[in-house]
């Protein structure tokens, strides 16, 4: 057994994280539903431990092969990591339409993506941190790619090696073919810290 495997979350910790993420996703869904004035469908959160080099194939598996727009945002607090928000299945201007823009240019479209990602990430991870009784902060979000395949979002050299925690939640709109995947990536040394926080939460039950 390698050291990295020792840091994988156990079944109880994964169950706890799934439910805590579920609560966070509900908060994020509600925030964005208020802005869009539409009902937002929520998925069951999926959690996997993967090798960092498998992140692109995992993204493709969850998001699909069609071109997507994506934003990344780092978080830090008791644990750190990065959230990748992938917008798929709809034209970019659908998002602009939802946010009340008539004719958004590409700069406005990018700003919209950043805004929406910021709302989703802030509400979701903010709620997770609150449930775990910890503080969390966020860096400014940045655009990873516009109209590119999900597998092209991260280059091999920035993926690095070792294990990562992959947590996916999905928001969908009933009336439009539009989905937003929120994927949390955490490096191996941070997973141990998260595991401890989850243990503390489990003990409180």
């Amino acid at each position, binding site marked *: 057994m390698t050291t990295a495997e020792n840091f994988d979350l156990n079944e*109880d910790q994964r*169950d*706890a994280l*799934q*439910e805590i993420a*579920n*609560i*966070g*996703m*509900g*908060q994020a*869904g*509600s925030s964005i*539903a208020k802005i869009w004035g539409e*009902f*937002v469908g*929520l*998925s*069951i959160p999926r959690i996997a431990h993967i090798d960092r080099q498998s992140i692109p194939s995992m993204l493709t598996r969850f998001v699909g092969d069609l071109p997507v727009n994506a934003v990344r945002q780092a978080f830090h607090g008791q644990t750190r990591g990065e959230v990748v928000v992938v917008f798929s299945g709809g034209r970019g201007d659908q998002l602009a339409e939802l946010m009340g823009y008539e004719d958004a240019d590409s700069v406005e479209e990018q700003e919209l993506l950043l805004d929406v990602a910021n709302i989703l990430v802030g509400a979701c991870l903010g709620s997770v941190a609150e*449930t775990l009784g910890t503080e969390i902060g966020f860096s400014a979000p940045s655009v990873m790619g516009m109209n590119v395949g999900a597998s092209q979002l991260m280059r091999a050299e920035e993926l690095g090696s070792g294990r990562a925690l992959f947590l996916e939640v999905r928001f969908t709109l009933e009336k439009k073919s539009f989905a937003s995947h929120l994927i949390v990536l955490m490096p191996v040394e941070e997973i141990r810290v998260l595991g401890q926080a989850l243990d503390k939460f*489990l003990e409180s*039950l």
Partner: protein
Amino acid sequence: MPVSVLVVDDSPIARKMLIRALPSNWDIEIAQASNGLEALTAYRAGKVDVMFLDLTMPEMDGYQVLETLRKEDLNCLVIVVSADVQALAQERVLSMGAISFIRKPVTAEGLSDVLKKYGIIV
């Protein structure tokens, strides 16, 4: 006679959180189900007075359970317990026959307020 309570949620942690928040002086028998199909099976196999029902579940979700209960004229008090806190989700489940909606994470106070409001506990 104890009240039959069925806790329906795919997450064992969520079921545990809910059961922990139930009033300690409430005379109940608790059964659990991890999806909608199991919930309906449990319902048909015996008595369920009060059902705590999650919405987002595999196999059969909470909306489908509400629909089936209504279609088959099944009689029990359903309290939806969900992380989906959109106003529309709450409206939907209430229009489908749930008596109330409790948001996750559940608190003992929130739960006891709802149970009192509907005269389930005094």
